[in-house]
């Protein structure tokens, strides 16, 4: 009974950590530019698929992952430089459609290069699972949780301690004031897109041994990451992490105790409930719309 619950909890926290990383990516880009970057999910796909491709070329796994993350970072920067920055006079709706176009484009390229099959990455550790109080915990889950925790801490330090991090925060708070203080806004926005792509790619690479990977996994994972960010209150870093974990756990419990057919509906039901009862999300006091 308890072991069963623990089993679902492990699964939930693991997917939750992945959603949290994706949600952080959405939050970063939204704060810097007010754009909801629907291409975010594709970087998860690239993280997994590119690692696989580099390994097929004979690279050892850690190097393959590093290369995949680098590739995602370059693509993230290019997405901003070539698409978003070029069209920065446009409506936010238009910019969002551009990111949707970019998502479809990246997915299309992935399909042409890597095909439509599902792939699994090998687990990072030799030993696949350990037993905790009667429940099975995959060692890969520990990797996911560990790497996610480290990334969140590094990100928090980056925003608190470094000038660059503070420049991003300043841009979120007041673009004009930040510009007057000498912050190069376009550079900051590009940095946000790049960091978001890196977060997505890391999530994709560490998740691939558990969730499998294919050219089209970015749609659902991206949308769920977005829901997680919205639950937390779009724009709040803490909210993104809490939202991600909440969503992951809620999904795992639904799949375990209610119906696995409706597992994917949980995220979207949650977003409706949140919008109806607390539209600013759990931590979203800062996102008051300016008129």
């Amino acid at each position, binding site marked *: 009974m308890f072991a069963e619950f623990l089993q679902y909890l492990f699964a939930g926290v693991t997917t939750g950590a992945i959603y949290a990383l994706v949600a952080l990516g959405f939050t970063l880009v939204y704060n810097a530019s007010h754009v909801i970057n629907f291409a975010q999910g594709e970087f998860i796909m690239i993280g997994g698929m590119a690692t696989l491709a580099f390994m097929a070329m004979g690279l050892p796994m850690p190097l393959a992952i590093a290369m995949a993350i680098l590739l995602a970072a370059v693509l993230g920067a290019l997405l901003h430089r070539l698409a978003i920055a070029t069209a920065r006079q*446009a409506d936010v709706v238009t910019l969002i459609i551009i990111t949707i176009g970019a998502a479809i484009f990246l997915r299309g390229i992935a*399909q042409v290069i890597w095909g439509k099959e599902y792939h699994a990455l090998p687990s990072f550790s030799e030993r696949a699972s350990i037993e905790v109080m009667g429940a099975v915990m995959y060692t890969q889950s520990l990797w996911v949780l560990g790497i996610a925790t480290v990334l969140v801490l590094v990100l928090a330090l980056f925003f608190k301690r470094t000038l660059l991090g503070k420049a991003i925060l300043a841009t979120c708070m007041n673009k004009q004031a930040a510009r007057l203080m000498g912050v190069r806004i376009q550079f900051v926005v590009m940095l946000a897109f790049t960091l978001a792509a890196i977060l997505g790619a890391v999530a994709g690479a560490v998740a691939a041994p558990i969730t499998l990977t294919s050219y089209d996994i970015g*749609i659902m994972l991206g*949308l769920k990451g977005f829901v997680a960010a919205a639950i937390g209150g779009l724009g709040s870093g803490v909210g993104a992490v809490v939202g991600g974990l909440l969503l992951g756990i809620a999904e795992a419990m639904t799949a375990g105790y209610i119906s696995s057919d409706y597992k994917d509906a949980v995220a979207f039901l949650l977003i409706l409930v949140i919008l109806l009862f607390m539209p600013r999300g759990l931590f979203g006091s800062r996102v008051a719309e300016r008129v």
Partner: protein
Amino acid sequence: MRLSMPSKMPGLPVLVLVLLLVPIILNDEFYLDIATQMALIAATVVGLNLLVGYAGQVSLGHAAFFAMGAYGSAILTGTYGWTPVPALLCAALLVATLAWLVGRPILRLKGHYLSMATLGLGIIIAIVINNEGWLTGGPDGIPVQPLSLMGFELSIFDEYHLFGLVISGTHAWYALAGVLLVLAVWIAQNLIDSPIGRALRAVHGSEVAARTVGVDTSHYKLLIFVISAVYASVMGSFFAHYTGFITPQLATFEHSIELITMVVLGGMGSTYGVIIGAVLLLLLPQLLTDFHEYEMMMFGLILMLTMIFMPKGLLPTLSALVKRHWPAGVRSSGPEG
């Protein structure tokens, strides 16, 4: 400005002319089939444009309303033996109620909350259609009865005799779809020119200013959201009767994105622009059939490039171009010659 322009253009006669010319120029069952589908989707997009272009709100779940209309008609006529017209009306009423229930609390808030809510709602509806196989046929889809009114059946496999002319079912359906599109445009234009439309344009311009002069902004936004959802539902019902077989593919998030892309591509707020957007986007897969593998890539690329270089959409950008090269003085012979 741009938003008030379409009503002054001779758009409706041009649209009717184009619709009449299509079967003469492309007298082929295959092309007429595509044209019929285009007309039905274009009418849906004209409704969606009311929401996006005039209320400044984005729906990321319109395909689900379209699918609810389609499935409502399919299930009520197929499983429960209703005739198509009451089934269509009942499905539309259901969609209107749902849109009203979700829209009412959400549209009181400022910002892009409606897009999040419709995203969630749309995906839930798609999941339900996929999972409740006993009702909807599940992932395999469900057959739909042909359209009929008072014992008269309209099927693409029949032939009809009218004033001594023999009309194929495909032609008859094309005519119906054309009439529906013209009707959809006519209703939309009247809405835009009505007090509701003027209030909405004020909302789009500046919500604060609109509120200050006494416009109940959230009320009008809700009204237009419900209307645009009903547009989608009604066209979904016709689409289902026309194709005779529907699958959950209709309700997917990707399909919602396609609909919103048609609006943005053609030009938000331009009724004829979004029709062009719908036609172009539906034409794309036909043009890319030889490059089937590259279709998704090309679709994404075209979408990105159009939005980057023509952020206002095709028709507004082109008409601005025309205006710049042929200023008003040249087009109409003014006193200065």
